[in-house]
């Protein structure tokens, strides 16, 4: 992905009036607050952190509103800010009790030459029998970078191209990461199914 130069960014900067800023904020940013909160909550696992994260995102969005081009994809723009805030601020002081070294897991799953030797025998009926809690539990159980692509794609309906921009990764990586994320999720679900006797 080519990096935009400072001059190009400057050239794209808008100069909105106060009235226009309010219109953009209310008309283009605020309709996404529900999705933003859900995304934040699924990243942070904590109501207060999720609330702070969304509030912080909207503050930044308002502060940098002149960088936003009216009529372009506001949702993707906001998600990108939220994701960056999460990585830079909230992830460091994560309240998660689980201290698994996810970096190690991510490095393994992110490597291009990974041998995905696992095959998951997850049946459709198994997933049908499960409740939202169990599916959410499986999603929450996978490393955050993988969880993120599933949320962006399957819950929020972003295209690979939009995800590539939100996450700052090449589009090919979006495709492969999503594939690995879904495999990881299926592994989790298959594990639950076995524990709970769904496959009997």
């Amino acid at each position, binding site marked *: 992905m080519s990096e935009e130069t400072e001059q190009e960014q400057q050239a794209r900067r808008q100069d909105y009036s106060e009235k226009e800023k309010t219109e953009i904020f209310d008309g283009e940013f605020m309709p996404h*607050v529900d999705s933003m909160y*859900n995304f934040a909550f699924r990243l942070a696992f904590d109501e207060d952190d999720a609330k702070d994260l969304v509030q912080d995102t*909207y*503050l930044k969005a308002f502060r940098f509103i002149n960088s936003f081009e009216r009529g372009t994809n506001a949702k993707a723009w906001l998600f990108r800010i939220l994701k960056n805030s999460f990585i830079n601020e909230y992830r460091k002081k994560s309240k998660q009790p689980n201290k698994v070294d996810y970096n190690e897991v991510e490095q393994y799953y992110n490597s291009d030459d990974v041998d995905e030797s696992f095959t998951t025998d997850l049946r*459709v009926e198994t997933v049908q029998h499960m409740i*939202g809690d169990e*599916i*959410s539990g499986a999603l929450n159980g996978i490393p955050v970078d993988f969880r993120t692509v599933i949320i962006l794609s399957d819950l929020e309906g972003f295209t690979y191209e939009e995800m590539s921009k939100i996450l700052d990764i090449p589009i090919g990586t979006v495709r492969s990461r999503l594939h690995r994320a879904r495999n990881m999720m299926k592994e989790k679900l298959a594990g639950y199914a076995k524990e709970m006797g769904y496959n009997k």
Partner: protein
Amino acid sequence: MSETMSEFSVWFKDTFKKCYCEQGNLIDEKQFAEIVQLVLDNEADEESRTIFEQKIRTCVKSNMSYEKEKSIKLEIKKKLCEHKAEMPTNLVSTIRKSVDL
């Protein structure tokens, strides 16, 4: 979008070559699952989609794999959507207050 499509067109063709069947068995199921994902995510271009549709019409194993992936994806999506976190009622007003609107 066209840039994206051409990137995946090449990938699709290379990957698809490995997904032939022998005696009714799909040779590389893992690779085929990646192709199915691209199609289900609506990221395959028209040519790739046509090749794919031809494949699932003529190969039972491929068709089963596609239908299974499609159902699992839909079911997971449905349940995750039903299980969304409830947004705090005061969040909107807090945001508006914080930006002084």
